[in-house]
């Protein structure tokens, strides 16, 4: 069963507990610079966006790694960096469309959300329901996509 972290940005109050929990779980530190999740506070709009790895099905970071240090687990869908092989070349940080992979400057290697091996610390730390670790319902996603396709076709016909 593949599970992913879904975010509900409207619920976020910007407390930053997720960021600290991630740093604590991975490094034993309370350092936002060592967190694999970031919160982008868009002040003018009262909106906070959670930046974390979407565990892409066709990850660009895996494509560009020149030493094959990043891989995707077929069964869980988790994309992981092997920091022993990582050479810190930064190419993964260039191609990620979300900016969700970054550099841990303590070791000079890439770091990204690894779902804490199935028990994400950030989700547990969030007291506002912004982060939820839920099963990825692939069938429902397929159905929605089909529905959108049908609507687009209908609109296209109207436009003719």
């Amino acid at each position, binding site marked *: 069963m593949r599970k992913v972290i879904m975010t509900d940005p409207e619920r976020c109050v910007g407390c930053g507990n997720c960021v600290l929990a991630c740093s604590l779980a991975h490094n034993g530190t309370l350092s936002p610079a060592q967190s694999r999740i970031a919160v982008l506070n*868009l002040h003018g*709009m009262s909106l906070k966006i959670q*930046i974390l790895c979407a565990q892409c099905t066709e990850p660009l970071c895996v494509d560009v790694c020149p*030493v094959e240090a990043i891989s995707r687990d077929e069964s869980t869908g988790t994309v992981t960096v092997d920091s022993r092989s990582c050479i810190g070349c930064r*190419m993964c*940080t*260039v*191609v990620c*469309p979300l900016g969700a992979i970054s550099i841990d400057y303590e070791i000079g290697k890439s770091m990204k959300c690894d779902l804490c091996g199935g028990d994400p610390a950030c989700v547990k730390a969030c007291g506002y329901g912004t982060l939820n670790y839920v099963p990825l319902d692939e069938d429902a996603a397929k159905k929605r996509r089909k529905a959108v396709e049908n609507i687009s076709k209908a609109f296209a016909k109207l436009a003719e």
Partner: protein
Amino acid sequence: MKTVIIGNGIAGLSAASTIRRLNGNAEITLISREPGPAYSACNLGNYLSGDIDRSAVFISSSGYYEKQHIRTLFESVVREIDAERKKLLSDRGELVYDKLIIATGSIPWVPSFGRTLPRGIFSLKTLGDADRIKSHRPRKAVVLGSGPVGIEAAVALKKNGAEVHLVELLDRILPRLFDARPAQLIQGMLEANGIAVHTGRRVTAFLGEPTVQGVSTDQGQIECDTVIVAAGMYPDTRLAMNVDGLSLTPEKGLKVDGRMETSVKDVFACGDCAATREVFTGKVQMNMLWHNAKQQGIVAGQNALGLNREYRGAFTIAGVDVFGRHAVSLGVPGGGIAEDAYETIEKESGSGYYRIVHTDGLVRGAQYIGPYEELGIFFTLIQKRRNVGDLLKMSSNRRSTAANPWAQRVVRYLR
């Protein structure tokens, strides 16, 4: 179905592993002039410097091919392709194929200056090259060419205590990736670590025999016991020359369509030997980078199986590691813009440097030195043809922000 793959670099390896992943029964033969198993050419600098062991350079194990039922003919050379009869003539005999994937890679250009090369002249392309350089134990080295490979070689040799001279023909180092100011800053980093950098200088001869003793340039001689030639690569398409109907581009790269098939049916090409369309320039050109080779190998493998997949296109992103400080270029540098006018938004600070290159607001490229990995977002923004003005306006609109929040991370760099 029999597929033969020529080459065990990342393109050939990716093609082989893709075919096996999608089809358990396909017969795959991989022939390569190098001994196996596959390794990362991008890690040779770290091996040369001694930062990593030789074993860490490999990206597959020797058991991998057997486990995947990939028949390998290592240290073997293909002599001729008979595309009409779908046969290869190799020094291990004849090979028959239904689909052929050419992944022969590229060859370093090495000047001879009209004489036989003395000992001590190397390129840094293969693992064998790195082994040979290490055995030679350079004490005084000239590195010819300041592209990423030249920089890697210079840094690696310096880390081993050699005296290093980096010689570049053009007026700045890393000329195809960085504009003048960032190139100057990177040069400063090299010099601060003891590497002598000579730009606007042309090497005119190798001096000495039987081993090199120096190079002569248009501005005097430089003494050395080693020369690393990193002055450019050309595609290895020698086999294609004698195949009727197999088209090459002016740069001698194999012409391929969107599915990596060449002008000869059932013959595919991928990696450094293939000419492909680059997404930032829109041009068909040589795009000799690891990630392009890998993706092209995957697509070639998929299409050898008849899956009809379209290649997304090559893209230019590259970086150098100068004694722990990183410089990265993505998209097109100002120097690569065909139109005369381009503008930059740039900033220099204690942390480092960055510049965003745009033409009339349309973002074309970005270069940075130091901890500016966030600017990687421009990789996506350039492909979406984002305009600086739009990005700034977007940040005041809640709906468009919510639709593309990640762009907001970099808006502050544009102000």
